[in-house]
């Protein structure tokens, strides 16, 4: 599992879109759904997460040779938790309103699997510079995803963007978009779009739609799966 050598540009750009943590790898979905009812919250959450990711990546890639392998996950979590505590308290001091909006979800950055995944997969094995580049790229990807959610939800659900009315005075807001179901529908819709985009990129595999002409032969998906397991 040694990471292949990549150029710095690739390190930076990887997480932005091609391996977008939220939209492609489905990591860190909790914050992407929970705190994107307004653009402001999305930005604040992205900033906090970026800080934690940068900080912990830096520290962990610096300490990578000093952390015993057996307890590395616990060590990573402790480091991340420390940075989260820092963010939690500084945000409370700097912007108490935003902190109140985000509530427990700032603390829950600890559990954002995206951060732990980057440490385990990248920062713990690479030099500091590359880890930072990767962290920046991943954070950018995270921010992009959160902004997509935040913008679609705030504009539709409230008719505003960053609190400024953008849909005209008589716009009827779709309240549902700032409620939990709306978050699920929005991310579902976006993921469907991403899936469509990925499917378009690949040459279409012709899958015969054999209903209702008959039963698929025994070389159906179930069989091939079993054969793979046997092999």
């Amino acid at each position, binding site marked *: 599992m040694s990471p292949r050598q990549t150029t710095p540009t690739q390190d930076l750009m990887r997480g932005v879109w091609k391996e977008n943590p939220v939209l492609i790898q489905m990591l860190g979905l909790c914050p992407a759904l929970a705190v994107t009812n307004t653009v402001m919250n999305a930005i604040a959450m992205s900033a906090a997460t970026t800080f934690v990711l940068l900080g912990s990546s830096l520290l962990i890639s610096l300490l990578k040779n000093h952390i015993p392998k057996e307890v590395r996950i616990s060590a990573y979590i402790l480091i991340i938790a420390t940075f989260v505590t820092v963010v939690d308290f500084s945000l409370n001091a700097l912007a108490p309103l935003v902190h109140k909006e985000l509530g427990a979800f700032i603390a829950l950055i600890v559990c954002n699997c995206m951060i732990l995944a980057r440490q385990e997969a990248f920062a713990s094995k690479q030099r500091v510079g590359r880890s930072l580049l990767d962290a920046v790229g991943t954070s950018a990807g995270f921010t992009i995803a959160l902004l997509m959610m935040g913008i679609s939800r705030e504009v539709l659900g409230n008719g505003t963007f960053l609190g400024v009315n953008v*849909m*005209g005075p*008589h*716009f*009827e807001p*779709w*309240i*549902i*978009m700032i*409620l939990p*179901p*709306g978050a699920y*529908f929005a991310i*579902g819709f976006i993921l*469907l779009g991403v899936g469509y985009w990925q499917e378009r990129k690949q040459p279409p595999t012709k899958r015969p739609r054999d209903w209702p002409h008959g039963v698929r032969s025994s070389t159906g998906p179930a069989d091939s799966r079993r054969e793979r397991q046997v092999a």
Partner: protein
Amino acid sequence: MRPWRGTGWEDRSGGEGTMEEPRLRLMAAPHLHAQDSTARIMWSVVATLVPVVLAAVWFFGAGVLLVIGAAMLGAMLVERLLGPGGAIRDGSAAITGLLLGLTLPPGFPLWMAFIGGAFGIGFGKLIFGGLGQNIFNPALLGRAFLQAAFPTAITTWPAVRPGEVLTFQGDLLAAPLMTPAEVDVVTQATPLGLWKFEGEVTGLWDLFVGATGGSLGETSAILILLGGAYLVARNYMNWRIPVGIFATVGLLSILFGLFDPTFPGPLFMIFSGGLVLGAVYMATDMVTSPITNGGAWIFAFGIGFLVVLIRGWGGLPEGVMYAILIMNALVPFIERITQPRVFGKERGVKKAEAA
């Protein structure tokens, strides 16, 4: 004449009484088929709803036709554009739109009704692969979406005006995406709202014929019951579901009435709000209700229980829609535990755990 087996025919002697060689067809047994078809079932459901629509026109004016039409248009358009072929002809999209329309208030802006229908079909049905694959009743999912998206518009109930067919109530023609204008609407609270927030109980006769405020198709209990009876007689509907729901709601309201005298009687609970329409036309949707008879009873009991729970202790005056949606979600689970006992076997599904 005989392309692939030449034996026997040509060298047959004795030509009298011979026959034209038929073109034989090879098809799997059984070679007979009952006359019913899915499309016939669906269109029968639509047909039994026509009297309900006409009653809505009588009570709320011709504007209701526009509301229903907009919902149907939204449903059928999305089905036509994105769905697999043939889905318009089988009538399922039409039913979705029609049922959604019947649950909306009479003066509901048309663009919202359209969005409700489109959402119900798109996210409630097509995403699962179209007809027969959906988990939630698409009409109710559309309705729940509208309820969450436009809570004000969907709880504005214009007053019932029997006979004034040509009046159009509410701002039906509000521009798309725009707030409906503050037109002069005489509103009337629904019987359930009156009971919940004012403590007032509407007369049973009004509930029964439908001369009350409320969603345009939910009010006339008698017509809905007649339509349901027809569908039951034709075996197009599982009678266990409405019967189970009515029984549960009735019994529970009698039970709670023993402890709390202000709790309304069973007949009020059954005939107010959307319970009759929901029990007869929404809960019995074949796709989203359990396929087993045992499951149907559990399903009906669950709906009845949730309706009483939400009406009695929830924040909303009406809970039929949510009750049905929640039980829809439980249907796969209910079916799992109510598989029939196979002939010649002990009860219980064999456990097939993934190793």
